[in-house]
Structures are given as C-alpha cells and as structure tokens.
C-alpha cells in the first residue's frame, strides 16, 4: 500500500512539475467562466431564452465539455509524454512493476479529472449564481446537480481515455490531434450525419448526455445513467487494451 501511495505522489509530482497542467487548467477555467458570461450577455436577445429561465441556465451550463477535453489532452500528455521524452525508462528502472505503475497513473488522472471537473463546474455555477443574483434572480433549475455529477464523471472518464490513447498511440501530438478530431469532427459531424441512430452511443455523445441538459428531442440522447455506463465502458475497454500493450511492449 505504501508503494502505491508513493507512486501516486510521484505521478502528482510529474504532473505539477511541467507547464501542461497549470496552463491547460487555466485555459479551461477561463473558457468555462467566459462562456457563462457570454451566454448571460446574449440571453433574451436574438431569440435566445431570457436570463433566469431554465433554458437560459442550461445554456450557460453547457461548458461541461471543456474540462473533458482538457483532461483528454492531459491524459494523453501524461502517458504519451512518458514515451515521447522517454522518462518512462528511468521510472520503470526504479519501479519495474508496470501494471502497478499504469494503474496508479490511471487512478491519479481519474481523481484529478473528477476534482477538476468539480472545480470548473463549481466556478461556472458560482458565476451563474452571481450573474443571476445581480439581476434579482435567485433560483436554479432542478437538473443542475445532475449536470454537476455528469461533468465530474465525464472529466474522470476522458482523463482515463486520454491515458489509454497516450499509451496506445506513442506519437503524442498525433494522439492529441486524432482525439480532438474525433471528438469535435468525426463523431459530431461525420458520424452524426452518416449513422445518426448509433451516434448517441459514441463516447462524445455519451459525455454530452452527461454534461448537458436534454435537448428538444430526447430520443437523440442517452439517459444520464446509460450515458455514464457507456462512457465508463469506453474508458475501461481502452484501458484494458492499453494495459495489455504496456505489459507486452518493449520499452525502447
């Protein structure tokens, strides 16, 4: 147990001794809070729902994807960066139990993802509450707690998916480009148009089902519980593949 705790502390030390983590977290917070402010500014204009309505608050809460994407990239950098900079070599020389090293890295990123998802959502929610209060509005719609939990789960899952991709695709930049292209373009544009009936079962759509309030056509999205199970399933499947690769592959 002591060994596992030491490994976890070492993983945290790795994360906090490079610029990737503070820079990406800062960007995510600025984007999340900024999107809330922009949504608040345009509320009630050009056909947008009026400020304080349930629809307006849900629109302002649509920043849940931001911590997910950040954790996806951070997970890739955390695992892929070890191979890119070959820091995996001295680390495995000191702690050659690959399965434990991999499991601890996944756990640390998942916990960090959950905490960061909670932090970003909390900051966004505080901004919404403050904005509404400034306009004399003092209530939030009932689904906010579910979206909070969904953002926490999605961020943790996307962090784990990032670690898996970082191991499976050794080219870190390639892995980041592929992951972003998949989440923003392949899944939401191409597959949504070509195979709309299965699109909701894909990972990004599942995350949207967790982090966003249901749209006007509920049949196009999974229920939150199903979406959570589907996203967790993708994370586990990719982690199993990455774990097998980690155990078998020679470290160059």
């Amino acid at each position, binding site marked *: 147990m002591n*060994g596992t705790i030491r490994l976890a502390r070492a993983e945290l030390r790795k994360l906090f001794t490079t610029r990737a983590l503070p820079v990406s977290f800062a960007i995510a917070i600025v984007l999340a809070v900024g999107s809330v402010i922009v949504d608040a500014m345009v509320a009630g204009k050009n056909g947008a729902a009026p400020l304080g309505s349930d629809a307006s608050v849900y629109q302002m809460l649509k920043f849940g994807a931001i911590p997910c994407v950040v954790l996806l990239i951070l997970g890739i950098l955390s695992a892929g960066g070890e191979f890119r900079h070959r820091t995996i070599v001295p680390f495995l*020389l000191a702690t*050659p139990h690959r399965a434990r090293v991999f499991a601890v890295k996944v756990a640390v990123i998942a916990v960090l993802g959950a905490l960061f998802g909670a932090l970003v959502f909390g900051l966004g929610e505080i901004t919404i509450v403050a904005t509404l209060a400034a306009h004399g509005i003092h209530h939030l719609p009932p689904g906010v707690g579910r979206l909070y939990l969904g953002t926490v789960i999605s961020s943790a899952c996307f962090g784990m998916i990032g670690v898996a991709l970082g191991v499976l695709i050794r080219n870190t930049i390639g892995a980041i480009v592929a992951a972003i292209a998949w989440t923003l373009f392949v899944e939401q544009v191409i597959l949504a148009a070509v195979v709309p009936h299965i699109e909701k079962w894909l990972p990004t759509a599942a995350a949207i089902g967790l982090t966003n309030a249901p749209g006007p056509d509920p049949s196009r999205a999974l229920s939150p519980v199903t979406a959570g199970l589907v996203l967790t399933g993708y994370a586990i499947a990719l982690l199993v593949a990455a774990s097998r690769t980690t155990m078998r592959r*020679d470290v160059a």
Partner: protein
Amino acid sequence: MSSAISFQNLTKRYGSVLAVDDLSFDVEPGQVTGFLGPNGSGKTTTLRILLGLAVPAAGTATIGGLAYHQLPDPVRQVGAALDSNTFHPGRSAAQHLRIIATATGLPRRRVDEVLGLVGLADVAGRRVGGFSLGMRQRLSLAGALLGDPGVLVFDEPLNGLDPDGIRWLRGLLRELAAQGRTVFVSSHLLSEVAQTVDDVVVLSRGRLRAHTTLSALVARTSVVRVRTPEASRLLDVLASAGYQVRLVDGSTVEARSATADAVGMAAAAAGVTVLELSRQDEDLETLFFDLVNTSQQNSQNQEIAA
C-alpha cells in the same frame, strides 16, 4: 554487495534480425567489467533485457539470481544509466530525481547528495532542456547512483563527457568497484575504457567473441615476428607449443601472445634457422577490431555458405 549479473543462453530477435544470439556470461562484483562491441552489436539490447525493459526470445538475464522485475527493491539494488535523453525538458534536474526518490521512498537529501556527487549541484534548479549532452550524462549517472545500489549498469557513459568529465568518471567507476560493487560498463571503443576495466566482454553481431581479463587481452597484443627459411616448420613448432601463429608471407611467421625469448628458444630447440626475430606489438584497439571483424567475417562466410 555480493550481487552479480548473469546471462544464460540469452537470445533476442527483432523480426528476422537476431540481435542477441545465445549469449552466456557472468559479471563479477568488485571489479569493472567492460561490455564492448561496435554499434549494433547487441550491447544495448542485452542491457535492456537485463533491466526488464525488453523481453528475451529465450534465455535469462539475472541480477543476484533474480530477473529485474523480481528484485524486492530495485532502486537500492541496481542503478542504471542507459541513455542521456530520458528527461522531460521542462523539469529541473532536481525535480527529475525527486520524482524517482518519491516513487521509491528515498529521502530528499539523497537527491542533493547525488547531484553534488556528479557535479550538478549548482544547476539543480535549472531546466534539463537547457543542459548540454555532458550535463545530461551526469544527470543520468546521478539517477543511477540515487539508491546507492550494489550493481551499476552504464551504457556508453563516456559519451558527451569532456576530458575532465571522462577522467572524473573513470575515477568514480574504479572507486565504486573498489567498494565491492558490480560495475558493468558498455562502450564501442576499447581504448575508451581500457584504463578503467578489469574484465572485458566482447560482443559482435549479438554473439560473445571474448570474455577475458584486460591483462590477458593486453598479453594478446604482444606479437613476435620471425623471418626464417623454414617458415612452415616453425609454424608447426610454435603452434604445437600453444602459440597463436600465422604465416605472414613465405618467410615470415607471426606469433601472438608470445615473448621474443620464448619464440627464440622454441626455434632453437627445434633446430629452425632464424634470420631475424623482432617484437611488433599491436595496440589494444587493433586487437579489438580484429576480434570484432573476425567475427563479422565468419558470420558473413556462414551466411554465404548457407
């Protein structure tokens, strides 16, 4: 401190390429063992298998009788510096070592100690991205020494070091061996490690070419040339006396690992006329290249025959 390294019938393939071919030898504690061979001879692959970074196709590589992943406390048992390019450029030297120290439960003061030992104390807080090759090499060595291990494995540790650094490292290797540690150092140049090593293991095309002491290898550089009208008879006489001999031309015989006195006495005892007798010692590097090239030539001949 009684740890020793052992390779038994070690074999490694990369596709159709046989990188390590049925390699067997031991490395003893209390001395510096040079692991020599040209680039691509399989040295690094052998070391990676020893350190659990690559899996052999057959055979074993053990430290104190155990595979690397079976060692109960690897960082305190084995220190290895395989490459000077295994650092995140954004981390400082101290941060890099602290990560390893944290993961293995080593005290923080040990990081400061090894950075001082390798001469990097003044740049401990600087990002590794700005380090020279020599500084990175020193940081690799610091990582190897972090757990104060009994077995040390260095892959081409002199690469990138300036003359002062080379002299310092040679002294360090000798000191570590004198403390009873097992020191296993690879190099592609015998001359680079000749001042440091006690034992020499020569590898070529993945196969063991020689495993001997440096003094025995030095003895093999002694070459005596004899000009005689009875060259073929002298060749037989010296060969039967146990010398490694060859006919240079129709009237000259060359005996390796021999003294002029011994060759002269053997010729006189056999009644062979000697016109001229002289010592023409080779340098170590020439002998090393002979060992390696003979192996490569034999391999090529075998491939042609096959």
